[in-house]
C-alpha cells in the first residue's frame, strides 16, 4: 500500500533520455561551496516515473471524473480550449522581463482582460497581479488602510466581518495589521443591521462581505449596509468568492462596494490544480484605484506597457516576483472570449437554476435547507442536524459515503453557524441527470443511515484507502519519507 516513489528508487538507475551534456565545473566553484552528498531524489526509469504519477492521478476525484459540488469553490467545467490557449509556445516561452516591445501579444490579452473584469464588476480599474483570493483580500485591506492613512485618519484599525465569514477574512485583517471585529448574522442569513450599527464607528476601516453571503443567500439589505458603513467613514470590500451567482446580472460596483477581488479559478473556470494556482484580480472605484498594486497594464499610442511604482506613487506596491499568475489570467481571458456578455449572464442563470432545483429535490426528499424560506443562490446549505440526532450519522459520515456513490462531497461544516452543514454548489455546467443522481444518492444514504448506520459511519468503503486517522497524523507527525 502507498508505495512512494522513493520505495521504487534504485542506486544509479536514471531516465537516460533526460540527460544533458554535463559541463566540468570543478575549477569554477570553490570546494567549500559544494555539497558533500547528493540530494535524495528518486532514481527511477522514465517509465517508472510516468506509471507512478499516472497511477497517483487515478486516485484523485476531479471535475473531469466526478460531480464535485463543493460549496463556495465553484467546481465548474474547466474548458480544455482555454488550457490549450494558454499552453501555446509563444506564451510559455516568454520570459517575464522581456521588453514590452516584444510582449505586445500577451499585454494585449491582459489589457483586454482588465477591461472585461472592470465591466463585469462595475469598477473603475482592475489590477491583475494578486495570485489568489487570499492575496486579493490582503490587497484590498492594504488599500483601505492606505486610503485612511492618506486622509490622516490613523484611528481606523478595525475590519468588520460577518460571523459566518470564511476564516480567510479575519486572517487577512491580521496580515494587514488590522483588527477583525465580527458582526452578527440574523436568522434569515442576512447581516444584522442593529449589530452592524453597534460595531461600526470611528475605528472602522472597512467591512468585508461576500454577496451572496457565505450562508448562500443574497444579502438583501446591501444598500442599507453600504449606507451605514459609508456614513461611519468606513469602506466596503467585496469578497468575490460567490460572484458566479450574479455574474453579468448584478455588479458589486453598483452595490456601492469600493474595492473587491475576483476568484478567476472559480467564476472564470480556470483549473484548481489540486489546490492552486488561483488568480485574485482586484478592482476598485475611482476613490481607491490609485492604491491598486503594481504592475498594471496600460495602453498608449505606442502600444501596451506596464505601469510601475513610478507612475503610480500611491500604489500599495508589488505583491509578486513578476506579475502574478499570467498563465491563469490567459485562461480566464480565453474563457471570457468564448462566453461573451450573453454567456456570462447564462452562467448565473443556470448556476442558480441548478442550485434551486437540487435544493427543491432534497427538500422534497425530507432534507432540511438551512434557510427554507430563501431562494438558493448558486449554492445552498442544508443542515443534517436532525438526521444526525436520529441516526447518529453525521454530516462527515454522509460526506464519506457520498464518495462511494461516485460523488465528491459538498463542503462540510461550513459555514460554522449551521450545525451539521453541507454547502452544496452544483454549478451551471452539470446536467439535470447528474443533479438527480446526486439527490438519489443522498436519499439512499439517508435510508442506509436509518437501517444500517454503521455502514455509513465506517465509509468510505470503495476508495483507495479507508477513513484516515487525522489525529494520528498530528500526533505522529510524518511529513517526509526519509
Amino acid at each position, binding site marked *: 500500500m502507498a508505495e512512494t*516513489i522513493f520505495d521504487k528508487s534504485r542506486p544509479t538507475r536514471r531516465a537516460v533520455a533526460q540527460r544533458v551534456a554535463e559541463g566540468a565545473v570543478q575549477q569554477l566553484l570553490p570546494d567549500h561551496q559544494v555539497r558533500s552528498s547528493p540530494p535524495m531524489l528518486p532514481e527511477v526509469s522514465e517509465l517508472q516515473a510516468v506509471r507512478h504519477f499516472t497511477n497517483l492521478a487515478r486516485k484523485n476525484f476531479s471535475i473531469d471524473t466526478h460531480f464535485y459540488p463543493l460549496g463556495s469553490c465553484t467546481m465548474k467545467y474547466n474548458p480544455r480550449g482555454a488550457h490549450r490557449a494558454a499552453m501555446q509556445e509563444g506564451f510559455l516561452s516568454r520570459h517575464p522581463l522581456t521588453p514590452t516591445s*516584444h510582449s505586445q501579444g500577451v499585454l494585449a490579452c491582459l489589457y483586454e482582460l482588465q477591461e472585461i473584469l472592470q465591466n463585469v464588476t462595475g469598477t473603475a480599474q482592475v489590477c491583475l497581479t494578486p495570485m489568489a483570493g487570499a492575496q486579493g483580500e490582503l490587497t484590498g485591506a492594504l488599500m483601505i488602510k492606505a486610503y485612511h492613512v492618506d486622509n490622516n485618519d490613523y484611528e481606523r484599525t478595525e475590519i468588520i466581518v460577518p460571523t459566518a465569514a470564511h476564516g480567510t477574512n479575519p486572517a487577512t485583517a491580521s*496580515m494587514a495589521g488590522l483588527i477583525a471585529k465580527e458582526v452578527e448574522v440574523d436568522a434569515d442569513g442576512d447581516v444584522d443591521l442593529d449589530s452592524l450599527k453597534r460595531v461600526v464607528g470611528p475605528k472602522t476601516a472597512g467591512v468585508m462581505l461576500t454577496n451572496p453571503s457565505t450562508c448562500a443567500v443574497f444579502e438583501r439589505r446591501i444598500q442599507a449596509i453600504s449606507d451605514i458603513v459609508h456614513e461611519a467613514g468606513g469602506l466596503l470590500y467585496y469578497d468575490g468568492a460567490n460572484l458566479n451567482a450574479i455574474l453579468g446580472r448584478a455588479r458589486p460596483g453598483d452595490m456601492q462596494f469600493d474595492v473587491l477581488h475576483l476568484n478567476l479559478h472559480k467564476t472564470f473556470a480556470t483549473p484548481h490544480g489540486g489546490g492552486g494556482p488561483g488568480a485574485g484580480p482586484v478592482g476598485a472605484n475611482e476613490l481607491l484605484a490609485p492604491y491598486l498594486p503594481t504592475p498594471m497594464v496600460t495602453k498608449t499610442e505606442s502600444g501596451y506597457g506596464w505601469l510601475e511604482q513610478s507612475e503610480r506613487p500611491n500604489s500599495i506596491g508589488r*505583491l509578486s516576483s513578476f506579475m502574478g499568475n499570467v498563465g491563469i489570467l490567459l485562461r480566464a481571458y480565453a474563457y471570457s472570449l468564448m462566453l461573451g456578455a450573453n454567456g456570462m449572464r447564462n452562467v448565473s442563470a443556470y448556476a442558480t437554476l441548478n442550485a434551486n432545483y437540487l435544493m427543491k429535490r432534497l427538500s422534497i426528499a425530507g432534507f432540511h435547507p438551512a434557510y427554507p424560506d430563501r431562494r438558493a443562490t448558486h449554492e445552498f446549505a442544508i443542515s443534517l442536524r436532525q438526521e444526525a440526532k436520529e441516526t447518529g450519522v453525521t454530516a462527515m459520515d454522509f460526506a464519506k459515503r457520498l464518495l462511494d456513490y461516485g460523488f465528491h462531497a459538498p463542503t462540510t461544516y461550513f459555514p460554522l453557524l449551521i450545525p451539521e452543514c453541507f454547502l452544496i454548489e452544483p454549478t451551471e455546467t452539470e446536467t439535470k441527470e447528474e443533479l438527480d443522481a446526486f439527490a438519489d444518492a443522498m436519499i439512499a444514504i439517508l435510508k442506509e443511515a436509518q437501517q444500517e448506520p454503521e455502514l455509513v459511519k465506517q465509509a468510505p468503503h470503495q476508495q483507495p484507502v479507508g477513513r484516515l486517522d487525522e489525529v494520528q*497524523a498530528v500526533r505522529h507527525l510524518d511529513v517526509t519519507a526519509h
Partner: protein
Amino acid sequence: MPFIPHTHADKASMLETLGIASIEDLFDEIPERIQCADLSDIPDGVSEMAMLRHMADRARQDESGTCFLGAGCYDHFIPAAVWDIASRGEFLTAYTPYQAEASQGTLQLVYEFQTMLASLTAMEVANASVYDGASALAEAILMAIRINRKSKSKRVLIPASLNPSYIATVQSIVTHQGIKLDLMPTLDGLTPISDIDFENAAAVVLQHPNFFGLLEDADSLTTNAHDADALVIGVVNPMTLAILKPPGDWGDTGADIVCGDGQPLGIPMASGGPSFGFLCTRMAQVRQLPGRIAGRTQDKNGNDGFVLTLQAREQHIRRAKATSNICTNQGLLVTAATIYMTLLGPQGLHDVASACVHNTHWLVDRLTELPNVSMRFAAPYFHECVLDFGEPTEALQQRMLNNGILPGYPLTGLIDNGSQAMLVCATETRTNQDIERYRQVLADG
C-alpha cells in the same frame, strides 16, 4: 450557451419542479435597482476555434528569440512527460485535498514533494508550497518573527544583493505588522559579513547565489548571525542545490528557514507565473510554518494513507490568529516539479546545474574577449554574471532583440553605473552556436 448542458425540456421540467415560470424569478430577492449590469464593453462570445486562432496570433507575436535572461526566471528544458502527466484532468481539475480518501493522488504527491525539497535544502520539513519566491520570502520573514522569542526587536536585515522584486514584495507585505527592514549594503557585489551589525536583529536574509549570480559567504553569515541570536533565512534557487552546499549545512548550525522559487524545476517561464514558492524549516518550527502540509497516517484498517495535517495553524480554523491568510498552494506546479525532479533524479539535476554553470562561464569568457566587454565583479559566480558592455544597454538590447536574442537583464538604477551593465545567464538549453551568435551580433555592433 457555452458549457451549459440544459436542453429546453430540462429547463422546462426543472422550472416546473420549482413552480416558477422563468429563471429570472429565482433572482427576485435581488433589489431590482442593482440588477442593472451593463456589459456593453464585453464582446459577443466566439467559438473555441475562433478563440484559439486569436490567441495563437497573440502568442506568435511574442516569440522573441534566444533567451539569455535570468534574474529569477530561467529557460530550462522540460521533459515531455512532465506536463503530459500534470495536465491529466485528475491533477488539473481537482480541488484542495480536503476529502483525503478521494484525493490520495495529490496528497501522496505533495508528501513526495516535501521529501524532495527537504532533501535538496537539507532541512527537515517543507510545506506544500506558497504563491511564488517573493511571497515565500515574505512568509518566511513573518515566520521568523514568530519563532524568534529571544529577540525583542522586529528588525530584519535584508541584503542589497537580494532580487529587487523580492525586496519590493517583502516591503509591501510584511511592514504592516510592525516589522522593520534594514538593508545591508553590498561591496563588490557581495554582502560584507564582517561589517554587519546583528545587534537587535530578529532575522537576517541571504540570497545565495545572490541576485548578481555571485556566491556569498553563507557559512560565516550563518555562524555570526546565530552567535547574535538572529535567525537565518536562506533564499535559494533549488536547481543550484544539486551542486551547492544546501542551506541546512551552512556554517556551524545551518539556516533556520529556507525559501525560494520553484520555477527552475519544470515550470515554463510563462511570463513569470504561475510558479510556486517553497518554504522549508526545522521540525521544531513546523507549527509556525504557514501553508498546507501533507502527512502520512493510517486508515481504519491500518493501511498507509495521506492527509493534510497540522490544519490548526491555518486560516479556516484559527481565523485571525492563523499563521497566514494563505489558503492555496500552487498544487499544479508542485505536481509538475515533483515529476520533473523524479525524471531527473540526483544525477540528472546535477548535470543540468553543471551545464548551466559551464555554459554561463563559457558565455562570459567568449564575450569578455571582446574589447568593450568586462566582468563587473570578481567573485565566483554560478549561472548568472554581471557584464559591463561599454555602451548604453537600452540601444544594445533593442539591437540584439532585432536579431532574435534576449541579451540579459539591464541593471540601470540597480547597481552603481548600471546603465551599461546587464545580468546574463546561459542555461543548459543554450548551445555553443547560441553563444557564438550572441558574440557575433554583439561584435558586429
